[in-house]
């Protein structure tokens, strides 16, 4: 029972917030000197300070805070000598195709375009992967487009044994996959959301338009 109290409190708080919105507006009108409105010639968004509460896209990470050098990235210790010797990610990403999520590099395209040439073998620079070109279509419930899983792009990076049979049983209909499981780091979420593009990029997987009427044709 006690576990519900925080939720209840939050609900009350939220209600209070919405209820008092006019009051806040009134405050602003009443004391114009306290917080002047944003100056008309505001600085460009790139250099928006974190303290600016009226910043555009307040909850998104601004472009100037992506791919920070190790000394500023929050997990490396700036006091360590090693940190200063490490390569800043942006210097490596300059020539790579960009994407909208993760570390903002389109790794699959980078590989396709030969912008990078990662080894398939620890020591043999000429070893090439055994690429399997087989698409698996998974019909999904609801109105989302069906999922197309391309073996091709995955086998460029991975060995069959990385996924089969521990994560995915190689048999049609044998794998129960849900977005909840993926969000919790299972199934596709073993990589997607950690090192591969995260689930915010819905349409990269949900890419096959459903045939005919959409309603109630789940698997």
């Amino acid at each position, binding site marked *: 029972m006690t576990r519900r109290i925080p939720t209840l409190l*939050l609900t*009350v*708080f*939220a209600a*209070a*917030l919405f*209820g*008092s919105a006019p*009051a*806040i507006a009134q405050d602003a009108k009443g004391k114009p000197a306290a917080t002047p409105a944003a100056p008309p010639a505001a600085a460009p968004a790139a250099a928006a300070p974190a303290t600016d509460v009226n910043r555009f896209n307040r909850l998104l*990470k601004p472009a100037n*805070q992506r*791919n*920070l050098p*190790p000394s*500023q*990235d*929050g*997990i*490396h*210790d700036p006091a*360590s*000598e*090693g*940190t200063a*010797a*490490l390569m800043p*990610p942006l210097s*490596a*990403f300059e020539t790579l195709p960009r994407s909208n999520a*993760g*570390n*903002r*590099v389109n*790794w699959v395209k980078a590989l396709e375009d030969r912008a*990078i040439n*990662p*080894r*398939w*073998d*620890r*020591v043999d620079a000429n070893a090439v*992967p055994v690429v399997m070109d087989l698409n698996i279509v998974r019909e999904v419930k609801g109105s989302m487009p069906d999922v197309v899983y391309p073996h091709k792009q995955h086998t*460029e*990076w*991975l*060995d069959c*044994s*990385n996924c089969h049979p521990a*994560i995915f049983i190689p048999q049609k209909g044998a794998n129960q996959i849900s977005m909840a499981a993926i*969000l*919790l*780091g299972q199934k596709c*979420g073993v*990589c997607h*959301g*950690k*090192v591969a593009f*995260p*689930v915010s990029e819905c349409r990269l997987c949900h890419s096959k338009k459903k045939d005919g009427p959409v309603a109630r044709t789940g698997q």
Partner: protein
Amino acid sequence: MKQVPWVTRVRRGLTALLFAVVAITLWTPSDSRAEYGDIVINNYADAAGMRPAIFPHWFHRIRFRCKVCHADLGFQFKAGGNEITMLKIIDGQFCGACHNGEVAWSVENCDLCHSGKPNTPTQVHESTIQKLAVPVGQGGSKK
């Protein structure tokens, strides 16, 4: 002029509280700024008086495909799940398969891996699960 009604005052108080709650929720994990996919490994480092090791996925995937480490070298897909020790590395296992002075620089360069902020828990940095939940061992030991 009438005094501000008590309802408004209570509302303002609650609003302030709500902002406090939201601010705390948003700012607590605000340290999470590092590169997507960077792995912090702190199974034994803190206890041994070393900084936690940080593995930059991005750097390695430019040079090697996933398969090399995750199939050939036996790295499990789990941060901290490989029980890596310096003994194993010097013995040529895990990182030591390449970081041996032949394929890549060798283990004398302690600080290049052990460069994390002390007491940073084992984690996949910026992962979806980290945004949804508190990382395992946040503010304490791993287990």
